[in-house]
């Protein structure tokens, strides 16, 4: 039998009549649903984060009105926010509670005069729990930038204090005050330009989405390796263990299993990849750059599946080991990979983890390709493939009756 026939034969065994491949292809859908459950408001609204909000401005000062216009108008123009002015606080809160709007912004009376006279003024951001995820992202942006504006007023206060100490006229002090506040407003309007972007808020607000998509890719790919784990363990216990197979032939069986496994895993990307591209309008060149990563990820997880299957005599034990290892890897990448206060050994393991490298290729390759990181991740994946394959083949030989 030539090597190609080995692969065809193994694909037939692993895929059955194609049912397993279809299942692998469809298996990401429930996982996509899971992610969609939390990210639906983001997923359904293109690239931006969409809010319908109510606003009540009880401060009659021109400056606050101007400031709110600056914030709101840009986002309204961009289509990120639809704003409905209300006349009473209760109306705004009721609109949120009834699900008519996602957020309600309340500006109490004397906000401007209080803050300008050195007294803390607090606005209210009332949000619906059902939109907590994106509402709080927006809230974080607006809170931090307004806080900076509010702290900036302290700077103007210091300047005014110096002017008073120098004995300047009241008119002159007012002029310094007004110019200082206008300066702050100008800075505020152009805050996005300091990193070369338009807009006022929500820079980087979709990073969590990128990360979630990447985790989804890697998780589904890993789950598709379960049949490989089980079949390998079963083969070694029941077929290869009872028959003497020459080393060369065993090698081809081994390679055929890795390749057929990789093809099975690749099928799980068939739906996910176009869906991800469609949802986030990923640039074609970025999307194409991920394809080598997808192929290598499939090969690595397939080799890992064969290695795990070769380690255990019972298919179920191998499967459980695979499940626990997968869960630990996913949890590690989701919660630990960016942390610094970890023991050096764990930090090192996280760096060389093929699961992390796979997630990193998807999260970074698809959205903003940093070539150096991409190359490193590909190197990690390739090294993992070589190590898993060699270790897997050694175990394969050990467990079969050569």
């Amino acid at each position, binding site marked *: 039998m030539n090597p190609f026939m080995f692969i065809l034969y193994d694909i037939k065994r692993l895929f*059955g009549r194609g*049912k397993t491949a279809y299942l692998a292809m469809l298996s990401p859908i429930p*996982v996509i*649903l899971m992610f969609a*459950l*939390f990210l639906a408001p983001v997923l359904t609204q293109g690239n931006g984060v969409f809010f319908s909000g109510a606003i009540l401005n009880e401060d009659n000062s021109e400056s606050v009105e101007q400031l709110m216009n600056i914030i709101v108008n840009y986002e309204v123009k961009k289509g990120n926010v639809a704003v409905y002015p209300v006349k009473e606080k209760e109306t705004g809160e009721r609109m949120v509670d009834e699900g008519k709007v996602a957020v309600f912004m309340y500006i109490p009376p004397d906000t401007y005069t209080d*803050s300008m006279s050195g007294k*803390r003024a*607090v606005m*209210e951001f*009332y*949000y619906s*729990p059902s*939109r907590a995820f994106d509402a*709080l992202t927006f*809230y974080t942006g*607006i809170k*931090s*930038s307004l806080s*900076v504006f*509010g702290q900036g007023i*302290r700077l*103007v206060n*210091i300047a005014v204090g*110096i*002017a008073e100490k*120098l004995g300047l006229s009241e008119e002159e002090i007012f002029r310094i005050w007004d110019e*200082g506040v206008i*300066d702050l407003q100008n*800075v505020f309007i152009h805050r996005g*330009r*300091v*990193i*070369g972007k338009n807009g006022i808020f929500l*820079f*980087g*607000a*979709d*990073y*969590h989405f990128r*990360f979630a998509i*990447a985790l989804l890719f890697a998780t589904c790919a890993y*789950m598709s390796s379960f049949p490989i784990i*089980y*079949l390998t363990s*079963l083969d070694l216990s029941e077929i290869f263990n009872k028959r003497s197979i020459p080393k060369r032939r065993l090698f081809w069986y081994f390679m055929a299993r890795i390749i057929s496994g990789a093809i099975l895993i690749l099928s799980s990307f068939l739906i996910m990849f176009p869906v991800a591209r469609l949802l986030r309008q990923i640039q074609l060149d970025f999307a194409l750059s991920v394809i080598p990563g997808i192929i290598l990820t499939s090969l690595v997880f397939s080799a890992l599946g064969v290695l795990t299957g070769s380690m255990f005599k019972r298919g*179920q*034990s191998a499967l*459980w080991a695979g*499940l626990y290892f997968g869960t630990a890897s996913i949890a590690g990448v989701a*919660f630990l*990979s*960016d*942390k610094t*206060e970890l023991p050096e050994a764990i930090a090192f393991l996280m760096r060389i983890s093929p699961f992390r490298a796979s997630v*990193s290729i998807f*999260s970074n390759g698809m959205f903003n390709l*940093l070539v150096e990181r991409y*190359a*490193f991740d590909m190197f990690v994946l390739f090294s993992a493939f070589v190590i898993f394959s060699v270790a897997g083949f050694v175990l394969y030989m050990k467990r079969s009756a050569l």
Partner: protein
Amino acid sequence: MNYYALLKGRARALLMDFSSLAVIIIAVAVSIYISKYSGNENARGIIIEIVNEDKGMLGSRLIEILSLEETFKYNVTTYDEAIKEVAGNKAQGIIEIVPDFSEKIGRGEYESLVHITVMADSYDMTTFTEMVINDVIKVWSEKLVEKRIGEIDGVGQDDLTEFREQIKDVWNRESLLDVESVMGKEEKTEEEENYFGIRWYAVLSMFYLCISGTWMCNYSSTGLLRRVSGQGGNIASLFIFQSLPGIVISFLGFIPVIITSGHPDPVNVFISFGIYICSSAAIALIICCISGKFSNLVLISPVSTMVVSLFSGLLCELPDWARLWDITSVIIPGHWLYNAIFEKRFFLGSILVLAGWFMIGICISWIFSKKKNH
């Protein structure tokens, strides 16, 4: 057909085989760990590389202000070194301060004062860009106000020094303009405890029962199904007797999980778990019958376990807007276990669900055995 002998054989195999026991022992250990430590916060401190190419003094001031941010840890370095660290996953972002940063701010220009590179490998990076912008704005505001002071008639170097002294801690002080978030009316009460230990153990137990049915698939070495079918045995009864030891072991494993969870009403949760695990066995019977081939089973099992656990709220909390999912999940056993965990009514619902899944399981296994006999 001697089902009792099958039960004994299966129980002996499960108890004697360490790897089978290890599965449930690990599940118990993981669940206890989750119960005890789910409230602990993760270590924080994402490393960010700063490349300061500014020829003036304001770049250093920006670094000073950035250092006050607690979410991130900063490392001032060269561009090549920064790229190396990010590429090697030792850092998650780069802030590059442009060479004419001070000059531009001095001239009142604001275009592209810093370049940011972000690796989206963490949820925490969502706030990173906003934070950098705010800190640049702080430097810019300081410079603007200083410039205004410089324009005042009669101002001296002492006054400017005094201003610089006074602004040193201005960014640590409370903002004069703030926004507070208020969560709207919640339709369900916020649970103080999440009992993830119990919930995840239930998920793992269901997966355990599903995957324990691989003997029903084509590639099984035991050929048990073939032999039983040949002797006219009943597949549903066979499955029940084969699953019973697994159910008992899962049930026993639940004891330490419920004890360590500190649940105020362990008896009700225990009863509910018993009904849940029996219903899960009925679902497992259906999954095993439908799968037919082992490779299908090992794909369907984790996916279906994940789906039913997700819909029932066992895996994680359902968002409030997913009302439809919540309502439809009443047909899933996990829904009633979830209710029991959070001290809501469960008994009648869970019994009806058990009866329903049991009947469906019997019907499907009957069809399956007819198909096998053909």
